[in-house]
């Protein structure tokens, strides 16, 4: 039930990501919705894994990247993408740094650095505002590894109940 709830919220965040991305809204808003999609998806996968409490899942971090890392060994997902095992593993591996970078855009993980919600101060004393900051990771999303990440974020939502959660 909770896994489904987190999935539904992730899907809604995903739809908003698509809207603000297509409309080329400021980087921070695009990335905020993508970060929230990944965060809630990661928690949904953890809850479906039934090994930790709901509270622990809520407090977990970088869960989506960790899910991808484990899912890179899943033959079912591999076949959906029509790749060999080694191709699929390499395919996922190349997108892990971007997945982590996106998850670390959450203020709780940004450690007073670049994040998508609140202004921050860089070591040289300059104050940055998310709304006017150019986030390098957004550029990476237009490159092959980033485009593949976007594709798999959509795919795992679609296949959630068939492959990754017990109904």
């Amino acid at each position: 039930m909770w896994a489904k709830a987190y999935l539904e919220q992730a899907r809604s965040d995903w739809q908003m990501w698509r809207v603000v991305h297509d409309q080329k809204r400021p980087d921070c808003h695009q990335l905020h919705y993508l970060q929230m999609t990944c965060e809630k998806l990661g928690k949904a996968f953890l809850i479906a894994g039934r090994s930790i409490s709901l509270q622990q899942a809520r407090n977990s971090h970088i869960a989506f990247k960790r899910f991808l890392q484990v899912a890179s060994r899943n033959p079912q997902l591999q076949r959906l993408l029509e790749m060999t095992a080694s191709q699929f593993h390499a395919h996922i591996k190349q997108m892990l740094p971007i997945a982590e970078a996106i998850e670390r855009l959450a203020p709780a993980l940004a450690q007073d650095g670049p994040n998508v919600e609140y202004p921050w101060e860089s070591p040289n004393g300059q104050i940055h505002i998310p709304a006017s900051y150019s986030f390098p990771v957004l550029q990476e999303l237009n490159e092959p590894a980033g485009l593949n990440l976007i594709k798999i974020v959509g795919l795992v939502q679609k296949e959630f109940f068939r492959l990754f959660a017990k109904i």
Partner: protein
Amino acid sequence: MQTATLKKATQELGVSPEDVVFYNKLGNKAFIEINLKLPASHTTDDTETAAKIIENHDIEKAVKFLAQNNFEVEDGLERIIWLRHGAGDTIRLIEVNRNGFPTGRVEAFYFAPYEEVPFETYLSDITPKEWQKVLSGEIPLPDGWSLDDSKEFLRSDFEVASVG
């Protein structure tokens, strides 16, 4: 339930459950194992035992498939622990991965059954340091998980073609 499993297994192999118990030259490893474990004068209970052995054989085959696959694709995997105690028809694995992301917990992800692994699988990826903490009890296992009757697979147990 176990008898049904035995019936299904034997039907797939084209023999009867009685064959499983009495014939010892079928050339099938599962059947040879059964014959080694069953007494000559079998009872219904022995047939149930045979069903259980087939069941275990199938799940072990699936776990070995997973272990082989995972060692091949993830070069950071040092060992895979199959936690059998209380798991029933589900597979619980802890994979000790040098490339893992430490969380200080044993967090599992669920994977649905599929052709080669027709069992629900719960897979947790932890670092070697976390594994040491699991062994020392500093990191607890999830509720219901136990290292009792667990089985460990090492990379050296498999012929692994590294994919780098």
